[in-house]
């Protein structure tokens, strides 16, 4: 399957402070056909989320500025972001237990490049 053929009209946001992982996630989503904005600071993400209005967010929990939990709360309480799909990527398996109530999907780090790409593609198809 050639993922590059997918339309590029879908916005995604990667909120991750680790530059390597942020790059991998960005590459993974780009490969899935998304237009990706990557942000390394929780507060900065909150500031930009409503203007960008991504349909998919990859969210780290341990973030500078504001924690991933705060960011997720912000998204869930925002009316303009009510269709945004949030994948939480955490390195703490116990965190998955607390997050999976409000997150659409919780992935335990390390998140596979291929797995994330395939998930993103599957989600694009669902949205269509």
């Amino acid at each position, binding site marked *: 399957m050639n993922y590059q053929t997918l339309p590029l009209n879908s916005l995604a946001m990667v909120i991750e402070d*680790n530059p*390597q*992982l942020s790059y*991998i996630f960005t*590459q*993974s989503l780009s*490969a899935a056909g998304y237009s990706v904005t990557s942000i390394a600071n929780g507060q900065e993400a909150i500031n930009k989320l409503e203007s960008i209005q991504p349909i998919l967010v990859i969210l780290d929990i341990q973030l500078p500025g504001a924690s991933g939990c705060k960011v997720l709360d912000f998204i869930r309480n925002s009316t303009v972001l009510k269709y945004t799909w949030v994948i939480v990527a955490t*390195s*703490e*398996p*116990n965190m*998955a*237990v607390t997050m*999976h109530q409000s997150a659409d999907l919780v992935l*335990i*780090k*390390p*998140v*596979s*490049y*291929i*797995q994330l*790409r395939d998930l993103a593609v599957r989600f694009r198809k669902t949205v269509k």
Partner: protein
Amino acid sequence: MVELFIAILLISFCIAIMLVVRLYSLRGTPGAFGLLLSNIAMAVWILGYIFEMIDPDLSQKIFWAKLQYLGIATLPVWFLLFAITYQERSAQFRPIRLALLLGIPVATISTVFSNETIGWMWPVIELQPGWVIAPLQITHSWWFWLHTGYSYLALLAATLLLIRSARNSPRVFAPQSMLMLGGMLIPWLSNIVFLAGIKVGPNLDLTPLGFTLTNLLVVIGFLRYRIFDLLPVAYASIFESMSDGVIVVDNQGRIVQANAAALEIFKTQHELGMGSSLPQILPHLPPPPNEADITALPAKEVSIGSGKSSRTYILRTTKLQEKGSQVSGYVVILTDITVLKYAQDQMRLQVMALNTAGNGIVITNHEGQIAWVNRAFCELTGYQADEVIGKNPSLLKSGLLPTEYYQQLWQTILTGSTWHGEISNRRKDGSIYIEEMTVTPFSQSPGTITHFIAIKQDITERKRAEERLIQAHNEAMEANRLKTQLLANISHDIRSPLGAVIGYSEMLSAGTFGEITPKQAGAIDEITNSANQLLVFVNNLIGHAQIETGRISMVNRTIHLDELTESAFAPIKLAAKKKGLLLLREIRHDLPPKLTGDPYWIRQIMINLLSNAEKFTEHGCIKLQVYRKDAASWAFEVIDTGIGIAPEDQGAIFEPFQQANLAQIRAIGSGLGLSIVRELTAQMGGEVEIESQPGQGSTFRIVLPMNKQVTE
């Protein structure tokens, strides 16, 4: 005047006759016979005197005067007889002694009746001039004075005997003795009147009246306290009914009398016949004392009888000896102290046991005063027994415990319950110690609590050891917590770079950075595989830490078996490929469409089982199959064709850091895998089953319940 005197004399006569009648019935009582005779003598004297006065004829008067002397001469002797027998407490009086005493009175009577011939008594006898009714006017010769002297001597002797008797007699006899002594003084008063030359009327003699009074007082004293009537009976009765054995022996050791108890004591031993020798029967008998001033010998403990019938007695010997006279015999008293001695022995034993007990024991009375303490108490507290007896146990209070604590203690024991607890107390030297104490109320009379017994044990050392243990435990817990924290931090810190390694390798493989050669692709596979193995290890480490601290949390979500099993194979794919192992995956259709559980930890179990299978399998295949076990459970199993595990090793492999038959194992492993599998399965409410034989491969089966609600 004379008529009045005669009337008084008549009354005196009547009194004497009455006393004679009364005393006759008591004649067997010691002293009574003497009194009886003295009253007869008195009556004779008074009667004679009355007729002497009223008879007008001189020769008749002389006859009556002579007749009087039957009484006058003998009366002092009868008094003396009374005094002697009364004092000796004996009704018997040896006739020879009586005969000796009566010598002079008999001579006097003879002299009186032969006065006309020899004239030793009355040389001149005349009628009193001027008086019709009057006694004779008489002059006295030497025999009269001899008789009078003898009479007063006898009276003096009688008086002295009574004084001595009064002094020696027990208190109950004192009033009797005093009354009798008072009576005996009257003749002496009459004598004083006579010597003073006081004359009443026609030379009337007041002596009979005085003696009548004497007789009366003595008899009243005698009758009023008729103890001598009772005493012989009482003594005999006491003697016979005494529970102590009493044996009277003479000074030769011959048995004179033994009471019933004494006969009973020796019944099984010997015949206790009268006249038999006591030292032969009772060899323990101490030799009679030689010292005159010792009346009682020191008590001695003796055993009589043998074996089970042996009994223990206290033997007391008392001398029978009148003051100043020879020892006439002994009274031997045997008091049975067998039961007492047994009780004493028992008590001594109990006190000894309590005293040697390792625990401190305190007995307190109902008022809270210490009644008894044992040696261990003294050692524990530093106090001596006499320093605490009578004091309140609160003197041990350390002041470290609240008042309510003590109130609760008292409330418990005053309601009859046992109190048990720990108390910190202060020793005499001020140091603090902790004791474990049990206080039990008890009673010497039913229904009421009379005492409390407290048993104390010094637990200061134990408490310190406990504190040290708790501290050590806390330190260990803290160290463990830090270890867990460290493991969690390490695994987190490793995960991020590992994520980058895996991510970049995947990107390389996927051609993100351009086309790669087959060799490069092989290298990338190696990198990915190593990273995946490292990841399994890191996940096991954090899983182990979380299980150990109980901090693991499980979610209950829909499991996508296809994805889950696919990703579980990822870490072993490359290694299996290199060994040429066949990897098989089977998901049966009998499973429910929506299976739930914690996908992360189920995957971790699968990865561990598959990694293990890969490590111990060189040829053949590894199969993962998932199926429905029964209505309420599902299962997955990993089957390999590897080296297998001996049944005896199958239990041990689940322990952390254990591997079966280590010598055979070439492969490396953390040893954590199976222990985590077991723990995680248990957390999920499932079970691990193992089927294996050496050389036959192994099957690990995880059975999980299906009844959980989906929370996603």
